[in-house]
């Protein structure tokens, strides 16, 4: 090969079998696509609706108030000494981030069928871009949360440093699961219908409207296997202050998020080559 070819990128296309490498370098190379796709999703969300950004604030606010009224006031759920409105808001914040990513990213490949069949870029970017758009919604809700904290005069102190870690685990977990679901959804559209149901069930199986202390002692070990339990408790601790008890479930959630991410990415890459034929 001549020397001037060395500067030119070289790609060899050949049939692949079994597991493929993740090619993270290529993901970085195509980062503009991720940014532009995420930007598009965010813009569309605020362009097509008259109220735009108000929806993102109003939705969780209204949902939080209703849940606070039902579970806090009427049912008298314990909230560990914290104002129940804050308690439930912090829970919803984390859950909505998780569910939002799952919903958007889970259907993302089918939604982008036109792109996938017409142009090449690393397909992993598609669910990632959808997740990034969901993250923007989360950040806006977070502003509302801060407003509530100020209103109630709650200051978590050093616990606040935990916030980026918890968000990272939350996003990692959701994106990892989304890799699985989005890829499976291409082949089996059943997941399109199963997903909202699974999210609904997950809401009750996770400590969103109730705290861990409400779970009977002997079930706690089983309950703690749900990674969202650790994430939600972690988020509450980061925003409202907490105890050292939160670190163990949070560490477990981090490990599970990592497993979901790695296994999801490899599974995605493995079935990716059939996407064009199934879309």
């Amino acid at each position, binding site marked *: 090969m001549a020397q001037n*070819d060395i500067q030119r990128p070289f790609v060899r*296309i050949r*049939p692949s079998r079994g597991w493929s490498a993740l090619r993270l370098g290529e993901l970085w190379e195509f980062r503009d*696509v991720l940014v532009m796709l995420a930007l*598009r999703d965010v813009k569309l969300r605020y362009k097509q609706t008259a109220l735009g950004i108000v929806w993102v604030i109003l939705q969780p606010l209204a949902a939080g108030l209703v849940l606070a009224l039902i579970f806090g006031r009427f049912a008298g759920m314990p909230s560990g000494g914290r104002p129940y409105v804050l308690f439930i808001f912090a829970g919803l914040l984390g859950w909505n981030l998780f569910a939002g990513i799952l919903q958007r990213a889970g259907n993302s490949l089918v939604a982008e069928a036109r792109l996938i069949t017409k142009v*090449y870029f690393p397909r992993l970017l598609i669910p990632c871009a959808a997740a990034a758009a969901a993250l923007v919604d989360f950040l806006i809700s977070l502003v509302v949360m801060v407003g509530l904290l100020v209103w109630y005069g709650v200051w978590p102190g050093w616990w606040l440093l935990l916030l980026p870690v918890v968000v990272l685990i939350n996003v990692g977990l959701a994106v990892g699961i989304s890799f699985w679901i989005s890829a499976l959804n291409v082949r089996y559209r059943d997941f399109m219908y199963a997903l909202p149901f699974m999210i609904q069930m997950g809401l009750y199986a996770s400590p969103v409207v109730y705290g861990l202390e409400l779970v009977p002692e002997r079930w706690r070990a089983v309950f703690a296997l749900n990674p969202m339990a650790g994430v939600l408790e972690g988020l509450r601790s980061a925003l409202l202050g907490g105890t050292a008890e939160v670190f163990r479930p949070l560490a477990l959630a981090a490990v599970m998020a990592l497993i979901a991410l790695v296994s999801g990415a490899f599974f995605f890459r493995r079935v990716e080559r059939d996407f064009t034929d199934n879309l």
Partner: protein
Amino acid sequence: MNDIAISVKGLGKRYRLHHSEGAAGGYRTLRDEVMRLPSRLRNAMRPAAEVDDFWALRDVSFDVKRGEVLGVIGRNGAGKSTLLKILSRIVEPTEGTVDIYGRVGSLLEVGTGFHPELTGRENIFLSGAILGMKRPEIRARFDEIVAFAGVELFVDEAVKHYSSGMYARLAFAVAAHLETEILLIDEVLAVGDTEFKQRCGMKMRQLVGSEGRAIILISHEPALIRSLCSRAIHVDKGRLQNDGLPDQVLTRYHLERKSASGLIVQGIKQVADGIRIDSIKVGGSEERRLVIASDAEHIDVVLEGAIQRVVRMELEVRLYDRDGNTLAFFSPGHDSGLVAVRNPGAFRLAHRIKIPRLLRGAYSLRIGVVDPNFTGWFDLPDAVQLEVEGATTRLGMLSAGSHCGWMMLSGEEVSPTGGLEDPR
């Protein structure tokens, strides 16, 4: 110096055709999968029982050098698009390899990544990024793109408010400013009005002319392939049929495309009531494919059949070039204003058609029988594939000083070799 841009070796793509019962719409549901489990297990013993293989592409090998513009021709479903999709990494090959030296830009449709709700400006950045441009690159060429598309006034309007012409122009403009070393283009010029097509053509020539680029272009327009490409390949039934200069490949393709085999009469789909055509001889041969020398001056057309009643009928023959343009029209009825009345029974129409001196290439003849005052008795738009042989490589189709006309033949004058050659 190695100046290969793309090297394709033994490329093949196989699709499995499942004779599936329930899989509507191409994708499967879990239910289908579960329902098929028993039969799947049974089939595990005797593999490939329910699966048919279809090779969309097989054994395709070629190289494209830098600075070369390769045209890909072939009928629909021949595998052209599959080839481009493999080269642009949208689908994976089943066998073979492709080595690519350089960045690849692929334009498989107009407006990849465009979203109607976004503004022109936003779409330029979105589509540009998806097609592989870096953001600084897009920013640098933004004004140029907008100017080329001629949408300066509307660049901050949502493209859903654009006219379809504006939309197509903007979409092409983004694609045309890709600066990759390798460009793959699939029929993107098939949209827009004539003026825009011309502008695209000019831009394409500019792209092609820019140094060191390799371009692969699929098109159904022979004129485009001829004017833009330095080389052409013909793909048919997934295989590489021909590789060479565009003119040669196109000529061969044209002759083979219409499956110019069999007898001319077999091409007749419909005739009017009361008329029967038994044989059509062109240049002394009943075959659909006719090879003549470039100095041939005439072709004899003889038509035999029978009629059941008194009719007025006369022959009409059109000479087409390879792109379907009419070069000449021979109609004794039109020219003389006299169309003979024929009595029931066997009939014979025989004419010696003086043709212009044709240069080497592919042509075709259309043959019909008409009553000029009334209606057509039958029409064979693609009656004969005419291949003109000769060494000349002059431009154009007609040689200077040629003239055409017709004369009627009486019975014995018909000669099979009036400057004509039998293909066999």
